[in-house]
């Protein structure tokens, strides 16, 4: 035995963590089941919407949405990119990945934006939230994947949860940042005209913070996509699963095309979110 070990008693943190997870599963299994069903249903619905119609119809629809949000260039790229995925015979996996990314993005925004607002409004929330966000982003994913697997089992829900934890922080941070950048003079003017707190929030602060919030949305999407491979390790399907399969079979070609497909989806989502805010500015001019 070395001296430090004699001097400093060991803290049984790991066994506490084990006990905590056991306690959670024992006492909250009902709650976890509900969460599980909701998330599973949500991803399932999105996947069904994307994958059940004929791929060509979906390509056209998504391209149209891209056109509407971000203009014809992005739309054109979207169209060719999706057609390439079809020709690579990865359509179904790609749509599952897209469904997972959209689901985790939506959930991240549903929690992240209000949390960003609370962080802005209340100093106490800010003090608590900041370190939590840091932990969420820096803690290696496997640390929370193991308990998540214990609670939810292998599958899409665990993957979604892991993605959510990793990808949500920018939604909070950039909402907060956007709100702090609203000019004090504009807020004061709103106040001087008798605006209530809610009116200030919805008529002044959120609209002015929107560009920043949108770049948060963009980051959330990108981070979600970067989690696809890890997500497949805990049982999610989709392109990540194809990559994993290519690794286990040492199939360079499969790995390559699956990787390309992830990149295509990433570029589409990135451009659509970025250009949608820029285009609005141009239109209103």
């Amino acid at each position, binding site marked *: 035995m070395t001296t430090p070990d004699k001097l400093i008693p060991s803290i049984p943190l790991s066994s506490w963590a084990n006990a905590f997870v056991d306690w959670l599963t024992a006492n909250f299994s009902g709650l976890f089941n509900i969460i599980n069903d909701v998330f599973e249903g949500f991803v399932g619905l999105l996947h069904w919407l994307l994958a059940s119609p004929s791929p060509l119809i979906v390509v056209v629809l998504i391209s149209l949405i891209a056109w509407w949000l971000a203009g014809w260039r992005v739309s054109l790229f979207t169209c060719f990119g999706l057609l390439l995925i079809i020709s690579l015979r990865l359509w179904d996996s790609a749509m599952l990945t897209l469904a997972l990314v959209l689901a985790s993005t939506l959930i991240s925004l549903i929690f992240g934006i209000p949390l960003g607002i609370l962080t802005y409004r209340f100093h106490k929330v800010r003090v608590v939230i900041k370190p939590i966000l840091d932990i969420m982003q820096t803690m290696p994913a496997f640390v929370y994947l193991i308990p998540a697997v214990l609670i939810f089992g292998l599958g899409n829900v665990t993957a979604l949860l892991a993605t959510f934890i990793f990808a949500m922080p920018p939604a909070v941070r950039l909402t907060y940042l956007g709100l702090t950048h609203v*000019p004090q*003079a*504009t*807020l*004061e*003017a*709103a*106040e*001087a*005209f*008798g*605006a*209530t707190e809610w*009116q200030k929030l919805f*008529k*002044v602060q959120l*609209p*002015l913070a*929107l560009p920043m919030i949108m770049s948060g949305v963009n980051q959330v999407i990108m981070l979600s996509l970067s989690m696809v491979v890890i997500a497949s390790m805990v049982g999610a399907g989709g392109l990540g699963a194809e990559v994993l399969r290519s690794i286990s079979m040492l199939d360079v070609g499969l790995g390559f095309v699956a990787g390309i497909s992830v990149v295509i989806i990433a570029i589409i989502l990135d451009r659509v979110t970025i250009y949608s805010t820029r285009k609005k500015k141009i239109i*209103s*001019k």
Partner: protein
Amino acid sequence: MATQTATSIIRVQNVSKVFGSKKKQALAMRRSGRSKAETEEKIKTTVAVMDAEFDVYKGETFVLIGLSGSGKSTLLRCLNGLIKPSEGSVLLENENIGRLDRRRLQQIRRNKIGMVFQNVGLLPNRNVLDNIMFGLEVKGVEKSVREKKAKDALEMVRLNGQAYKRVDELSGGMKQRVGLARALASDQEILLMDEPFSALDPLIRREMQKLFLDIQGEVQKTVIFVTHDLDEALMLGHRAAVMKDGEIVQFGTSEDILGDPANDYVEQLVQGVDYSKIRTAKSAMKPLKAIAYQNESPQVVLRRMKANHLPAIFVMKRDGTLSGLIQLPQVTNLAEKRRQDLSAITPNPCHRVGMETPLREILPLYSDQPVPVAVVDKDHRLKGEITPVSLINSLTKEIQDYERKKSDLTEAVQE
């Protein structure tokens, strides 16, 4: 005094505002005669406003004037509750602004007190019209009414046709107009204006001041106007309070302040006024249509005066310096007596002023008789004349407006 019978709409009583932790101590230090700077340095606490007391009457434009940091904005913000006074009270028709709950305060801001800011504070994501509608929107006014009122306000600030522009496409002056229109659209009876024109360049500023006077002539609001420019105060305001280091150091009509600066500080402010530079005799003087020399024949001079419709004419000595003024009847008399020249009568003495004499010193010269005042150079050579009419014309329109508004107030006050 007449003003006491006027209805006071805002009453500021002993208002002090202290920023910092040692409020009591800071106020005590200031009241015991220490300077603002000293207090700030010693205990890191700023007395922004100290023991302010005044009334604002219905329909007048009340000016708060003072150098930067003198506490004007702070005091103004106490009037609509954006800042709560540390001591004292602001009564708006007997309601204590500092004590109201949030709801009531919002109601008052929506319906009673509007505000225009130096940095405007427009919403960059909205177009001009939507910005102007903001106040009405907050009030929950129906959309069609909202649009109508906003368009009326837009017209008032002469921005018709710009309704659908983005605000970041507008010039500074136009933005300020939008800010003004936003306040006008909500149609509160009191308007707080915090240096609304200070950031504009002088020409645009003049234009905005005129616009303000025109609009004020139409809508007759009670305005509390903050400025650090005495010229602006003179032009726009009925009464003014001069602030220094948080205290009101003088108080009265703009004219009182100009004529009798209470102390060095006010004197300093007054010195800054353009009076001495722009509005001097030189600017109001006009060239003489005709003059006469002492050795000229009365007939010739008489014809010259009639041709130029002159009731009186300046007479020059042989050496070219000014002798005085003679009246038409006098010349006629000489002509009838068939005198050879004008030397038979001594010209009436007339007022002479130098080129740089301020106009406000010239004005009283007409009180004894409405004859032209001669403008002479250093060598007493006649350079031009100032008649009551030319003086009035040359005093910029702003001054006329100022005078007009002042008489309006006197009437209002007497009612």
